[in-house]
């Protein structure tokens, strides 16, 4: 299950809770990835739309892949407005072995960026502007295009 929150994430709460989950279990490596909104190009915040049904399926597929390697994935993401210097995204891997954990968090975060159905907007002077230049067409994009 993905945790979706309105506004910024409480990073300490989320990570502490995930740490409690691994406590007493036989995980050897725990790697969280914390994404924080950077102050750049005059933005005051980012804002996010999420399409949950497809996001959950995307995550379930990754959870299956992780389980085949003996690992577990966790993920929390913000919906709506997230001010600069606060966190919009945390994911984590728990694995018996470090090598599997390091590979998985990398692959998971990269695929998340490319294929999780989440849309990002810069908030500048209160206006919400689609971050088109930083966005990536999903796998399978262009299926209905008449260009080909």
């Amino acid at each position, binding site marked *: 299950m993905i945790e979706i929150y309105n506004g910024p994430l409480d990073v300490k709460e989320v990570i502490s809770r995930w740490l409690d989950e691994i406590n007493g279990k036989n995980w050897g490596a725990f790697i969280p990835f914390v*994404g924080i909104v950077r102050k750049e190009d005059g933005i005051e915040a980012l804002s*996010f*739309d999420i*399409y949950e*049904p*497809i996001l959950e*399926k995307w995550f379930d597929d990754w959870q299956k892949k992780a389980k085949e390697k003996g690992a577990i994935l966790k993920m929390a*993401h913000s919906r709506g407005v997230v001010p600069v210097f606060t966190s*919009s*995204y945390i994911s984590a891997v728990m694995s018996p072995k470090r090598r599997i954990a390091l590979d998985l968090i990398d692959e998971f*975060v990269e695929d*998340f*960026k*490319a*294929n*999780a*159905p*989440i*849309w*990002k*907007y810069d908030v500048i002077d209160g206006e919400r502007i*689609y*971050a*088109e230049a*930083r*966005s*990536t*067409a*999903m*796998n*399978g*994009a*262009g*299926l*209905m*295009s*008449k*260009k080909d």
Partner: protein
Amino acid sequence: MVKIEFLGPIGKEPILLDVKNLNDVSKELNKDENISIWLEKSAVALNDMIVNSLDIELKDGDKISILPPVCGG
């Protein structure tokens, strides 16, 4: 009737179409320039599953989603 949803920044209300397959949906959507400019870079889901072919028959109540370029995190 099938329902077409436009996600994220496309910013268009859902529409209902009386069509038999995904090819028909494609033809209809390409008639509207405000939509067709998104199609080139958008993925397509049928009942919340991403699809990779237009040769798919539709049934009454199916939901089609148009997913423009993403950027989570």
